[in-house]
């Protein structure tokens, strides 16, 4: 069932970008896709492979926004991010930092690892350190005099030093500051309070030196009286000549250029030729790249940043990368990342972005254990639900993924839906969108029973009045894999005597009658049904006591075709054949309404209940309904308009050859009174609701098809049908909704009128039951969750009352 469904939209990223050879004046940046700092550490589990700085991150977040956007049912939004870097060390990774780096990092296994650390989440890292020191505060005092500067090499390799603090000293600026001031230092894994060995500190220094961010870097220790060490990282940042323009290119899916290795023994001329060829290659690469989605506004922002900064420094590049990536993340391009900066030391900085081009869309079915299996559902059924932005050649956007998730969910065929973007190993920079589906059981049957205790005499439940009730439902879903279904249900509120009150429904639904690949969305439905309702036509006005109720039993058959234009707008047309039986309280067939007389007796000569006068009518008619609904939610409040036109056209087939044209037009406008900023948590706008409903009938009109006035969906403040029953009616209503906190209060005015057509209904039930035929009401109310509480003043008698209702009036 829908409630037990679970959907997943996960974005899994394995090695973010495989390492590649780079042209010399370039910077390689690996980054993960989610701003991990937003995620609390408890939601991150890290695993560490010691020795190698490879790191996998698993982010598991239950996203509230995803849940809110779900159509219904439980929604778990999985973000699955695992990034492992430096698989191949710095075979070139670290070599790119301009002239300074020069390739010094070549072959250094830790080079790549450094990068991963650079961008790995702080919190995750901190946790890792904790694990290391988790055994206990075991550290060795330095055993040196206090307040002397010690070279790293002078430290003992056997001791475990406790670092009391880590200071940074920028040699160029001549300033010293501690960690977490500058983004640059996120890469330093040494933390104050940690315990490290000399080898660890040395490794740290090596990685810092090889990363290319610094021209020069050194670590010195300063002894503290309490036996701890204070580390000073002194560095000179790498810089390049200042640039004036900035360019962002999409290098996704570009084939990797193979660079000939630079031979150490090359002559100067050879070197020159080599650089030239590389420069040429790079220019070609830029030419072949595609324009990226990054808007000019962000580009201008970046240029501004560069202008303010002057020289292009490592820190600036980092900032640029952060800004560009933030834009992509904010816009939902979850797979986009800045992979490289090229053309450094020229006038133009080139930012290479892999935006996440979809190279393949794969749909998989899973069995209950999660193994891939053959699905019953035909693939076109799923494909037609996918937005075309998920097809090959488009850039992956998480919103498109969410939409796919919602659309597939609305099919109600799957218990679990996952939409995963996954890097394409064969096609670098490409994304494979994987859709994993767990199908629901095709056939299901359900029996539910319930005991209803109905009040007996004097309101006390007696044993005889405790009735067992129950429902038997069976379903055969997704027949032929084309989402066709048969659903049947039988309900009785009294299983001991089911013939008393038995309702059943058998429905067959056949979607895609124009073919599953045809964009036209028409569904054929046919059903057998029965229903029992109390007729509001036979209801007393204010001056009349209890009117004996009349029950309208309908048994029939319905077949219609419904065409969906949008999610809410649709056109339905079909045929209804039904038998209507009118019964009184004792379930015996009755032909006329009754009214109590002041003498205590019943006047049995009320309006006829049926057209035939026998208490049983049979008729066939055509039914059409067109709904135009362009309402949408603005911060949780409905805005837009809804028009519904419904027509029942009698065919002259049935008892007394009923020929009629019964029509209803409903117009509802939800007018937003104030422009508001849209977004989660923003207040909704005040809304004015205008509503009009006209109902009319020409031709044979039996009482059960008459339009009634009064009731929570007609004129509030009155009972159902309290104002009258007529051939033509007009209802108008206005409601003003003012948002208060995350709910709203409202004031309304409503009026219903029979347009003098009560007398055109046989037996004039309006007059027979002494009803006014028209009435107005006004009142105020508040929405309390799902419940509407309202105080409505009935204008006919000028008395007010408080009502509690479920659901919306409009």
């Amino acid at each position, binding site marked *: 069932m829908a409630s037990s469904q679970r959907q997943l939209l996960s974005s899994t990223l394995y090695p973010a970008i495989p390492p590649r050879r780079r042209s010399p004046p370039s910077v390689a940046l690996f980054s993960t896709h989610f701003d991990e700092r937003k995620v609390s550490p408890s939601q991150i589990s890290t695993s560490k492979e010691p020795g190698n700085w490879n790191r996998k991150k698993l982010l598991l977040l239950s996203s509230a926004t995803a849940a809110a956007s779900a159509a219904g049912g439980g929604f778990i939004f999985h973000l699955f991010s695992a990034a492992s870097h430096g698989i191949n060390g710095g075979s070139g990774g670290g070599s790119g930092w301009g002239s300074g780096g020069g390739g010094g990092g070549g072959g250094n296994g830790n080079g790549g690892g450094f990068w991963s650390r650079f961008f790995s989440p702080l919190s995750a890292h901190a946790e890792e350190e904790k694990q290391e020191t988790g055994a206990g505060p075991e550290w060795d005092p330095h055993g040196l005099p206090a307040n002397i500067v010690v070279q790293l090499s002078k430290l003992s390799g056997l001791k475990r030093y406790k670092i009391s603090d880590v200071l940074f000293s920028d040699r160029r600026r001549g300033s010293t500051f501690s960690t977490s001031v500058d983004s640059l230092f996120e890469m330093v894994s040494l933390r104050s309070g940690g315990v490290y060995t000399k080898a660890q500190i040395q490794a740290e220094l090596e990685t810092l030196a090889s990363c290319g961010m610094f021209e020069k870097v050194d670590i010195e220790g300063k002894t503290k009286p309490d036996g701890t060490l204070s580390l000073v990282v002194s560095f000179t940042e790498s810089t390049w000549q200042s640039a004036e323009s900035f360019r962002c290119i999409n290098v996704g899916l570009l084939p990797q250029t193979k660079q000939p290795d630079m031979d150490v023994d090359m002559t100067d001329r050879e070197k020159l030729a080599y650089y030239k060829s590389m420069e040429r290659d790079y220019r070609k690469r830029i030419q072949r790249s595609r*324009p990226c989605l990054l*808007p000019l506004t962000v580009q201008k922002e970046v240029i501004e940043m560069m202008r303010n900064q002057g020289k292009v420094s490592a820190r600036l590049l980092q900032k640029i990368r952060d800004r560009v990536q933030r834009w992509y993340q904010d*816009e939902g391009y979850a797979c986009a990342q800045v992979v490289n900066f090229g053309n450094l030391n020229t006038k133009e900085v080139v930012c290479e972005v892999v935006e996440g081009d979809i190279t393949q869309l794969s749909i998989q079915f899973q069995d209950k254990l999660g193994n891939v299996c053959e699905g019953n559902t035909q693939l076109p059924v799923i494909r037609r639900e996918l937005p075309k932005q998920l097809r090959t050649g488009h850039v992956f956007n998480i919103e498109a993924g969410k939409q796919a998730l919602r659309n597939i969910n609305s099919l109600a065929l799957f218990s679990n839906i996952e939409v995963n973007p996954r890097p394409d190993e064969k096609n670098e920079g490409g994304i494979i969108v994987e859709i994993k589906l767990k199908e629901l059981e095709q056939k299901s049957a359900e029996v539910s029973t319930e005991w209803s205790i109905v009040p007996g005499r004097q309101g006390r439940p007696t044993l005889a009045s405790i009735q067992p009730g129950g429902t038997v439902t069976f379903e055969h879903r997704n027949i032929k894999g084309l989402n066709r279904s048969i659903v049947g249900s039988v309900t009785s509120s009294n299983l001991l005597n089911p013939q008393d009150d038995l309702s059943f429904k058998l429905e067959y639904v056949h979607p895609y009658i124009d073919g599953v690949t045809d964009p036209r969305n028409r569904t054929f439905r046919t059903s057998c049904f029965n229903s029992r309702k109390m007729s509001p036509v036979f209801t007393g006005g204010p001056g009349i006591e209890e009117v004996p109720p009349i029950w309208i039993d309908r048994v029939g058959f319905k077949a219609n075709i419904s065409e969906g*234009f*949008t999610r809410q707008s649709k056109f339905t047309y079909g045929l209804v054949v039904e038998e209507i039986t009118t019964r009184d309280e004792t379930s015996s067939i009755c032909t006329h309404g009754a009214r109590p007389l002041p003498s205590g007796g019943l006047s049995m000569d009320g309006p006829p209940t049926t057209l035939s006068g026998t208490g049983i009518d049979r008729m066939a008619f055509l039914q059409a309904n067109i709904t*135009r609904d362009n309402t949408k939610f603005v911060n949780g409040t409905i805005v837009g308009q809804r028009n519904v036109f419904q*027509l029942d056209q009698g065919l002259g087939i049935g008892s007394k050859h009923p*020929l009629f044209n019964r029509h209803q037009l409903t117009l509802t406008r939800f007018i937003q009174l104030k422009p508001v900023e849209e977004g989660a948590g923003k207040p909704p706008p005040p809304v004015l609701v205008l509503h009009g409903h006209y109902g009319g009938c020409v031709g044979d009109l039996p009482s059960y098809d008459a339009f009634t006035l009064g009731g929570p969906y007609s004129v509030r403040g009155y009972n159902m049908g309290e104002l009258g029953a007529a051939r033509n009616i007009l209802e108008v209503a206005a409601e003003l909704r003012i948002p208060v906190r995350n709910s709203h209060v409202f004031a309304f005015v409503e009026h219903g009128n029979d347009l003098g057509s009560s*007398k055109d209904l*046989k037996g004039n039930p309006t007059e027979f039951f002494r009803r006014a035929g028209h009435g107005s009401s006004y009142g105020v109310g508040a929405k309390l969750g799902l419940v509407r509480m309202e105080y409505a003043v009935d204008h006919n008698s000028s008395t007010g009352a408080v009502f509690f209702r479920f659901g919306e009036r409009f």
Partner: protein
Amino acid sequence: MAFQTAREWLGIQQFPAATQTKLIELLGKLKQENVSTLTILVMGKGGMGKSSTVNSILGERVASVNAFQSEGLRPIMCSRTRAGFTLNIIDTPGIVEGGYINEQAVGIIKRFLLNKTIDVLLYVDRLDVYRMDTLDKQVVTAITDIFGKIIWRRSLIVLTHAQLSPPDGLNYDDFVARRSEALLNYVCLGGRISKKEFQKNRIPVVLVENSGRCRTNDGGEKILPNDIAWIPNLVEAIINVATGGGQSISVDQKLIEGPNPNNRGKLFIPLIIAFQYLIVKNIHRSINEDLKKEEKPLWELRDLGLAERKF
């Protein structure tokens, strides 16, 4: 109620000689007009003196009168013949009950009147009632609904309990005039009779005093405070109305049930459907416009290449 065979009008002999002469003279006048049957329908609220009036006209105690209680809900028809002339008087129960029109009583009256022809309607009310309310209007409306507006061309208003001394020292004739005016006003309202129509065919107002203590004149005739012998006066007025134009109303099934609203406009259904087709078309068109106007999220626009790096 079955038709009683018309009996000889014996009650006429109980009237004083002067009244008898007058009545016979009036009947003779009717005969000249070739009218051999006259059917009078008496209607009004309960307790107004309908049955007493019937008794007074016939000079017999045909309808039982009880001071405190209305007789059952059955209408009574009395037929009397005199020299080849038949007089039918239909007495009806009051049609008001508990401040509302009693549809049941109306229904019984309707069914009783089936296949009868009504020549004159006597709408009975009391002279000594000073106030009028919407109930009077409702009664008039109910009567109009049964027979249609034309019934008022064939009706006269009878004000009973005419022997009274007007309050506040008003002149009797003045009082009668004002009371009639007020009542006629309501009749016009309830019967939906326009002022112009009313001016053309005024509804006559006749005073009646059914009490046994009614003053009599020298001839033994019952007279009103304004010295008019009211029985001959009433009969004269009835005969004037009966011969004064307008049409007798023959009550048939159709009149009782009213026009069948279910049949009205059936012929126009094809036209209505054509119009409705236009409505559906119109809504369909606006749906298509909605589809075009639908706001697409930025990412979708970018995907369509519409962004041109502006957003």
